[in-house]
């Protein structure tokens, strides 16, 4: 049996987080009624003229700088011609000859160790409209709200050899771009879309095999499955003496297979030519340096700083920096309550658990650092106990309640009154003679049950320290 190797390059489209479209002042807001964010420019009306959104250039530069690219100082746009109803102009304004960024790389890490993935180029372009098939009329419906939303396309070199490397690369891009605030990069909502170019070859071969391009990959899981499936399909073809055809394929994640879409058109078929309606973009040192100076602290640096400055364990720093939103909440909360480890515990424990329960992403978090800081202070100052704090946190997570007011309103203050707790403990001991007996016979676990009963009787508000201490004392005495 011959040994094969998979060769993968990625084309990643990222929707930029601008307020307006790339060439007109229409809103980019997601989820509005069809065609309510349209104008003559983004519906391709004759005589309309595009004007470039400056923020698009700045985001593209920022992503390029963060991925070690050379920034093209004299750039322009080109027209890519094709006919499709989601493309009202019959051309897409894109960049072929002078893309804004070139020759970059990012470093990834997998179980196999560190590796550099080269980036061929990053270019700016406009998104197309949305086409929906109408079952009733056997027609298609077009919504141009997305037409003209700014995209960058990040084209890697064919440097990846496994699904794990692909996912590590995508994670790295996602984190970098999220840290820049240039996009929210949600695969499931389409603000990050990856097309996988894949070929196989015998191990040791110098030439690449014929590649296919896989589209419609909406999750990391779908990407991994599609890569495995396509690798097998190509190896089977070769083993059977057939040829791999260069084509675009569409992945169906429910069925677990792909089918051919259309034979890949050659580049010249798009009849690219310089876009006459837009003038060249000149990026001088001053502009470049301004964007450079505004670059944020990225994940790797942040992780190291969290371990040094806040003394977080590596495990905590790793998880918290995995999402920009988490890191932001961590820093602001810590600044307010000066208790990094407690903040980290809340984020990694309860926050992660609740997110998982609700099927949400860290980007969806809505509570304020102020309220989490107040909650931590309430526990530290002994105003509420850990149990109560857990319940209050669920409310903060859900509705961003002010914990100080919530505790007051619901009478959740911890009971530190030893005399009252003593009375409750006496009752609990009297009602549970079996557990008392078990404890005295050396079954130390029985105390856990008694603590639970006491807390229950005290409606969860008793100071657990006092409960423990009193129980031990009283169990010993009698």
């Amino acid at each position: 049996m011959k040994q094969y190797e998979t060769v993968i390059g990625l084309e990643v489209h990222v929707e930029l987080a601008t307020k307006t479209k790339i060439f007109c002042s229409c809103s980019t807001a997601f989820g509005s009624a069809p065609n309510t964010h349209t104008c003559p420019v983004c519906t391709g009306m004759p005589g309309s003229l595009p004007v470039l959104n400056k923020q698009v250039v700045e985001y593209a530069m920022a992503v390029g700088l963060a991925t070690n690219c050379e920034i093209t100082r004299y750039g322009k746009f080109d027209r890519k011609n094709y006919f499709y109803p989601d493309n009202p102009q019959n051309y897409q304004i894109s960049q072929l000859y002078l893309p804004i960024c070139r020759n970059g790389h990012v470093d990834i890490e997998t179980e196999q160790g560190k590796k550099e993935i080269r980036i061929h180029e990053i270019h700016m372009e406009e998104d197309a409209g949305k086409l929906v098939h109408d079952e009733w009329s056997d027609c298609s419906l077009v919504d141009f709200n997305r037409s003209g939303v700014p995209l960058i396309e990040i084209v890697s070199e064919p440097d990846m050899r496994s699904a794990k490397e692909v996912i590590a690369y995508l994670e790295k891009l996602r984190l970098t771009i999220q840290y820049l605030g240039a996009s929210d990069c949600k695969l499931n909502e389409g603000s990050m879309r990856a097309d996988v170019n894949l070929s196989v070859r015998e191990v040791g071969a110098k030439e690449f095999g014929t590649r296919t391009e896989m589209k419609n990959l909406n999750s990391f899981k779908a990407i991994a499955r599609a890569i495995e499936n396509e690798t097998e399909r190509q190896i089977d073809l070769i083993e059977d003496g057939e040829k791999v055809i260069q084509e675009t394929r569409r992945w169906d994640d429910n069925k677990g297979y792909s089918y051919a879409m259309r034979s890949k058109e050659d580049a010249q078929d798009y009849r690219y030519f310089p876009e006459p309606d837009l003038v060249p973009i000149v990026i001088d040192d001053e502009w470049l340096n301004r964007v450079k100076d505004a670059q944020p602290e990225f994940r790797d640096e942040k992780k190291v700083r969290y371990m040094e400055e806040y003394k977080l364990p590596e495990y905590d720093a790793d998880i918290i920096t995995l999402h920009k939103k988490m890191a932001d909440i961590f820093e602001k909360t810590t600044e307010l309550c000066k208790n990094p480890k407690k903040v980290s515990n809340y984020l990694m424990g309860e926050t992660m658990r609740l997110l998982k329960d609700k099927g949400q992403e860290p980007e969806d978090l809505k509570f304020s650092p102020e309220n989490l800081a107040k909650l931590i202070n309430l526990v530290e100052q002994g105003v509420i106990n850990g149990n109560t704090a857990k319940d209050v946190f669920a409310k903060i997570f859900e509705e961003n309640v002010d914990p100080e007011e919530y505790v007051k309103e619901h009478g959740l203050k911890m009971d530190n009154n030893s005399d009252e707790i003593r009375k409750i403990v006496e009752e609990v001991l009297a009602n549970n003679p079996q557990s008392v007996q078990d404890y005295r016979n050396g079954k130390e676990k029985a105390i856990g049950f008694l603590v639970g009963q006491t807390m229950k009787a005290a409606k969860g508000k008793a100071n657990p320290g006092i409960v423990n201490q009193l129980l031990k004392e009283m169990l010993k005495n009698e």
Partner: protein
Amino acid sequence: MANIISDETIEYVGILAKLELDGEEKEKAKKDMGSMLDYIDKLNELDTTGVEPMSHVFPVQNVFREDVVRNGDDRENILRNAPEEKDGNFVVPKTVD
């Protein structure tokens, strides 16, 4: 004419441009295209060593817009340009990937 356009080429260009040409139109287009390419050949005779490629006919650069929403909902007007509309959408012939 130095450039002779083949039947295959004109057929292919027609498909890309979504144009249906009859026999006579094809012959005319072949001739036009041939003379255009001849003219390009003529231009190519010029020595352009040291001349920067021109990206735009106007000596203007860096024309930008600030990222501020200025367009409101103008769906009614925009849809007036639609041959047919349904539920706020443009209706087009059935198109599936």
